[in-house]
């Protein structure tokens, strides 16, 4: 037996890799996103020489905290086969209303739950339209987006400054952790906690598994007796709550609320989720992948500002990346269909 051990170890790796890939086939898009992230990191480090510093890496989490939160909620919705275009506008509206309540002296312990509840209401409204009135998710969330954007301007046409210490604390506190100048802010911790919670809920709870079942085939899920209606409603509510939380995080980040905040953020979020390997047809994808997608987005934005190039290049590169990923996803799906 020992005589065949050595060659088996060599062949063993190949077969292990093959077996690994076969078992983890749904994780391949996530690995691709990780590989992409590494490539961007290495390329940026080689080009700038001072890219991979603790300051830049820490800022990545800090600057995109709201996007992580939004991407988690969006992943839930996209996994059911839906889409939520309202997240950016809901984030702006909850931020505006929260800021105006804070300005009027309402305690922040009350304002933050109100903001989350407001987000949940928007999510619920979209869910009800989609589920009970057969409105396409695209149109229902579009209406919510218009409504939230208009309401944000009703609160105030100008930006509202936030001077409440506990909200600003979320952003200004720098918790120095690892050696070498890494730091994390409470907003970053919130973002990471949301990612972890989202991943755990999707992986281990009945609700999470039902979401995958619905995305795979809604008809089958219904025939299996799964609570399709409740789960889909809840997925939109999750996205709405995430949008409300993103409103809190973004308000803390900018120290003010502006009704035009988050214009086009829904597209950035969808792009990040797709780059992270979630199929838009639903049923396949991971919150962790969406997190990687946001990292890719943030890194590209940082690299472009390092170059001093125009920020319009961010959207162009994200568009191109989206194109590459969608085409590759399409090829993967086409191949598995042929089998």
């Amino acid at each position, binding site marked *: 037996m020992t005589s065949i051990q050595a060659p088996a170890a060599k062949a063993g790796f190949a077969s292990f890799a093959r077996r690994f890939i076969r078992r983890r086939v749904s994780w391949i898009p996530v690995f691709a996103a990780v590989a992409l992230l590494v490539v961007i990191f290495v390329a940026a480090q080689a080009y700038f020489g001072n890219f991979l510093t603790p300051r830049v890496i820490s800022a990545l989490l800090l600057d995109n905290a709201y996007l992580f939160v939004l991407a988690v909620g969006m992943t839930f919705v996209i996994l059911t086969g839906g889409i939520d275009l309202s997240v950016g506008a809901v984030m702006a509206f909850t931020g505006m209303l929260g800021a105006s309540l804070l300005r009027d002296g309402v305690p922040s312990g009350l304002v933050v739950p109100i903001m989350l509840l407001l987000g949940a209401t928007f999510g619920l409204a979209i869910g009800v339209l989609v589920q009970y009135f057969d409105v396409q998710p695209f149109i229902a969330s579009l209406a919510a987006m218009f409504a939230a954007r208009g309401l944000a301007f009703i609160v105030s*046409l100008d930006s509202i400054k936030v001077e409440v210490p506990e909200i600003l604390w979320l952003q200004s506190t720098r918790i120095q952790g690892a050696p070498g100048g890494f730091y994390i802010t409470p907003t970053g911790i919130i973002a990471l906690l949301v990612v972890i919670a989202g991943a755990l809920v999707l992986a281990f709870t009945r609700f999470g598994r039902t979401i995958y079942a619905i995305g795979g085939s809604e008809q089958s899920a219904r025939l299996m007796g799964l609570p399709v209606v409740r789960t889909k409603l809840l997925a939109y509510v999750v996205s709405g709550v995430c949008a409300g939380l993103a409103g809190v995080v973004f308000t803390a980040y900018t120290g003010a609320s502006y009704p035009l905040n988050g214009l086009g953020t829904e597209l950035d979020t969808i792009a990040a989720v797709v780059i992270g390997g979630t199929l838009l047809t639903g049923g396949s994808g991971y919150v962790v992948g969406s997190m990687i997608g946001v990292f890719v987005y943030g890194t590209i934005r940082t690299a472009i500002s390092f170059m001093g190039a*125009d920020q319009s290049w961010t959207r162009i590169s994200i568009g191109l990346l989206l194109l590459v990923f969608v085409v590759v996803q*399409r090829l993967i799906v*086409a191949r598995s269909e042929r089998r």
Partner: protein
Amino acid sequence: MKKVLTHRLVLPIAALIALVAVNTIARPSFVSVTVQNGQLYGPLIDILRNSAPLMLVSLGMMVVIATRGIDLSVGAIMAVSGAVALTIIDGSPTPDDLGTVLAAIGVAVLIGLLLGAWNGMLVALVGVQPIIATLVLMLAGRGVALLITGGFITTINSAPYKFMAQGYVIGLPFAFFVSVAAIVIVALVERRTALGMLTEAVGINPEASRLAGVRARGIIWGAYAASGLLAGLAGILYSSNTMAADSNAAGLYIELYAILAVVLGGTSLMGGKFTIAGTVIGVFTIETLRSTILFLGVPSAVAPLFLAIAVVIVVLIQSPRVRGIVTRVAQGMRGGTKAEVAR
């Protein structure tokens, strides 16, 4: 009478008439048309003029939606086409020359066509979902437009170009004639040839139409190319109205307004049957709504809220559940004598 009431254009037309009526009561000047130097002026004329870009985009959107698709990139294509046209005119030594302007418009519209063909290729050949395929260009397009103008808002002085949106022909705005021409051409191509029927066939059941020998690929490709072409032309009208290539503002949200106009007109987002007359009415409804909101003195930033309310009302009216309830109530009122449901 019953046939008239159940016609699918009844609701859109009723909505438009109601909107105009409310406007007329609120401000009698709404329907007044004054003549100055042989040119007509008035709120209604403004609606005819301002609706032209949305009309062009909505016609393209309608054809794309009929194939079960959606085109999110029209606003970005408008920005690119406006940027291209104004950059060409800005760079030419003779901006007032008709030839220069026509060449610029030709190039810009051609680029719109190419961008539309690119969308069509992704959808028809590669098989990407329409929302995502056009999202790529929606994200990247505005960036490209900004690069073309070098990040600035290019402004020009060119009489022929200005004529596109602001000129008058026999008393009516030239832009109105452009949209009428577009409606007529689309109607002729779709309804006087088999193309319209084939497009609907592709939208109703792609697989069955393929088995029946319909070249679904070419039809889908053509639909996106047409949408790109019309969006390119709309970009010209938009930039001609302001005489500036503002890549951030040009056609912002127009994809959403266009989808709304098409849906308001009674074309289902599920693809298949489409109605040109309905789309035209939908466009005028939205434009009237916008004019109303402006008149009410609501800040234009709040306007989306009213559109959201309009969208919700329309989709609720179209939803099977609400229709079922209405039918049941109507039957109940008739004493439940009629068993069959008039659909």
